[in-house]
């Protein structure tokens, strides 16, 4: 999906009426292309009628600011006591602080809309967690203060929602994963919004959802030859009609071009069963296989340190990141076929020289250098 905002009424526009030039003498190298070219800017196309039409057009102004936002990371998770919307503490707070940072509001608004979308009522628990760095007593106290800060901020947003909030902190007691690496510790530092929903039917989105959390690093390939020219690669086994398709995404690089950053990627089918050909490349970037409404590319570029996220500005209509198209034989492809793709993002205002690329079906490719 391209996202762009039209230029204002001041945009340069032109209207031309012009008679097509006489037909060409040279033969077309390919029989499928019109041999006859008009003069530049002349009317062209209604060849059959040879009827002059006014030609018009204007450049479209890109709006990079519209694609720059505070980093929002609210994961659907499972915690002790029920389902949870979980936010990494690093996104909400500065290190060792219980004061909500500038990013917090956008993340808490996202929690509110998720709670409403899930029709949650009754008691919602806000539980603060830390990693195992520092003393247990300090961590316990910090986790309580952080949960309380979230409670206070959410209280106003959830007025007359039928939800009551209860905050607590458990320090380092309930880690999600072992505290054995920096990435795992970051995952354990979190605030969980734990809820129970009376609704038993899963949201209609769930059955189509193939996305993984932004906090999850992309799975590195093993047992397959490395991809030529890639600075990072991730693999994903995807179940399609009860068969497993093995896919790889290669990141070829991030390149700054003035106010934009271009991410070059390749998608690749490593293996697929039988004679089937996988045709859902586009879905890897939307995170949804929903044939009706799954169309929006949800890939993101983000600056984890400065907590800014950058949303796609131009993706070439998905053609580049996908095999979207009609059912022509050019559109599905077999094992080994590389598909190049690109996404233009706004450059971050943080001046970061390393950024992370999130592709919904693969996870995050972290700390990629910007050329």
């Amino acid at each position, binding site marked *: *999906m391209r996202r762009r905002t039209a230029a204002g009424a001041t945009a340069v526009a032109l209207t031309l009426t*012009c008679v097509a030039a006489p037909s060409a003498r040279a033969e077309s190298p390919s029989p499928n292309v019109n041999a006859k070219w008009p003069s530049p800017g002349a009317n*062209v196309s209604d060849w059959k009628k040879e009827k002059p039409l006014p030609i018009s057009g204007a450049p479209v102004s890109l709006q990079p600011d519209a694609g720059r936002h505070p980093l929002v990371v609210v994961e659907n998770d499972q915690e002790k006591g029920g389902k949870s919307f979980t936010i990494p503490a690093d996104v909400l707070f500065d290190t060792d602080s219980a004061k909500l940072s500038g990013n917090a509001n956008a993340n808490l608004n996202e929690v509110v809309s998720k709670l409403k979308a899930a029709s949650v009522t009754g008691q919602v628990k806000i539980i603060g967690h830390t990693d195992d760095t520092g003393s247990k007593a300090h961590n316990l106290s910090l986790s309580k203060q952080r949960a309380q800060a979230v409670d206070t901020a959410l209280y106003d947003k959830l007025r007359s929602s039928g939800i009551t909030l209860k905050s607590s902190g458990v320090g380092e007691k309930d880690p999600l994963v072992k505290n054995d690496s920096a990435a795992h510790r970051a995952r354990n530092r979190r605030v969980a919004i734990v809820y129970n929903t009376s609704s038993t039917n899963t949201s209609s989105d769930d059955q189509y959802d193939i996305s993984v959390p932004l906090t999850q690093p992309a799975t590195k390939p093993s047992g397959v030859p490395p991809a030529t020219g890639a600075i990072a690669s991730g693999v994903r086994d995807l179940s399609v009609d009860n068969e497993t398709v093995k896919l790889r995404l290669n990141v070829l690089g991030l390149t700054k071009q003035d106010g934009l950053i271009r991410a070059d990627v390749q998608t690749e089918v490593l293996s697929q069963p039988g004679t089937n050909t996988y045709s859902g490349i586009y879905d890897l970037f939307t995170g949804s296989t929903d044939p009706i409404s799954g169309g929006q590319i949800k890939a993101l570029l983000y600056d984890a340190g400065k907590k800014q996220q950058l949303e796609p500005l131009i993706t070439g209509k998905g053609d580049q990141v996908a095999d979207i198209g009609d059912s022509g034989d050019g559109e599905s492809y077999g094992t080994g076929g590389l598909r190049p793709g690109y996404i233009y993002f706004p450059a971050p205002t943080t001046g970061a020289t390393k950024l992370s690329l999130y592709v919904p079906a693969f996870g995050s490719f972290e700390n990629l250098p910007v050329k």
Partner: protein
Amino acid sequence: MWRAVTRGTRTRLAVLGLAGAVAAMAVSTTGCSLLSGGGGADPGTSGRPKIEMGADGHVKGAIATATTPYQGYKVQVDVVSLTRYDKVTRLVFVVKPLSAGADTTDDLDGTTFGGDSLSGGNLTGVELLDTKNLKDYVPLTAGSGDKTYCACSTIDSSSGFPLDQPTTLYADYPAVPDSVDEVTVVLPKVGPIPHVKVSS
């Protein structure tokens, strides 16, 4: 599981249509006068430049070139010229799908290099991106509504692009300002080709 491939295009055409209508009230140029007095070489009566292939398989004198793996083939694009006329910028480029040793007589779909197709033109997806001024140029269009045509090469999408044969294509864009020296040419399947110089 295919979706309609109309992403963005409809909206964009609507925008263009509106801009065109506004402009039509203010400006109306008839004949081919826009070509005179604006600089730019006369491309000749046919408008189609003569293309000569070099020994390396590329167009002689190409100003930019890109080769990308695609579906087991490679796609090669040589930009022949990007010329600013008075009110129009014309892009001329040669596409050549390479069989890359594959044992096939296949061709590549007629929309391969153009993205979405409008009736009468298949290069609406070929764009010029001015990253300095954050402007994106799509091909000019003629007509409106269902009778909208792209000011670009007409491709019979049912026959496709033959492998290992060059096909010369063009697309016309709104004029790029004089202050712009280079743009990025963005082609479906091939991707962006940065730093393509604009000549006058």
